[in-house]
């Protein structure tokens, strides 16, 4: 179980290699990468500013990760979330789960992402041609929690 909140970029391949190095008991690894899209609806996005609540962010992510590990048989899990100004195309978040079974790896990664979206204290501001705009929370993200 690893949680990192950082400004700098991450390397998905290296992170997964580090999780699996020296072991041969893992059957399935899921990675989810979230990236800054260059459009929000029909408006271009040049940069996304990620603000967060240092201290609470780490706690919230650790709680979500611990809950995933309690619900599923995981052999490894990782959450990396970036903050600061991120240009279009940049990595925002990486979630990795490893399990003997593919279903557990899929479900736990989806669970972590669903809770991270509306339970971790991050706020996104998109800046494009018309200036900056805080991204509204979506009802569908809150609804996504109900399935778990």
């Amino acid at each position, binding site marked *: 179980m690893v949680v990192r909140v950082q400004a700098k970029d991450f390397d998905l391949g290296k992170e997964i290699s580090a999780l699996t190095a020296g072991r041969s008991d893992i059957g399935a690894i899921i990675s989810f990468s*979230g990236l800054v899209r260059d459009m929000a609806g029909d408006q271009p996005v040049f940069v996304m500013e*990620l*603000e*967060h*609540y240092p*201290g*609470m962010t780490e*706690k919230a992510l650790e709680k979500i990760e611990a809950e995933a590990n309690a619900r599923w048989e995981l052999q490894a899990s990782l959450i990396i*979330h970036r903050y600061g100004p991120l240009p279009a195309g940049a990595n*925002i*978040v990486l979630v990795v789960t490893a399990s003997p079974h593919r279903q557990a790896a899929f479900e736990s990664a989806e669970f972590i*992402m669903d809770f*991270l*979206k*509306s*339970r*971790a*204290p*991050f*706020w*996104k*501001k998109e800046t494009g041609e018309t200036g900056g705009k*805080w*991204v*509204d*929370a979506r009802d569908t*993200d*809150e609804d996504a929690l109900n399935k778990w």
Partner: protein
Amino acid sequence: MQVLYFAWLRERIGIPKEQVETSAATVADLVAELRLREERYALAFSDMAAVKVAVDQEIVDLNAPLAGVREVAFFPPMTGG
């Protein structure tokens, strides 16, 4: 206690955090006090349905008590991931 503001609440109030001396019993009481201070607070807290609160870094609702609390944070619904 330390009071923190994030995202558009921070922008509207104009500061990321401040030390507040208060005898407010609950979060709602604290919000009522802050609203009376200045227009920018009244504006930031005009629609509490759009504001979330954490007390000592745990999400709570408006009637949460403030006794013994060191840190209160106000922010919009979260949009991580």
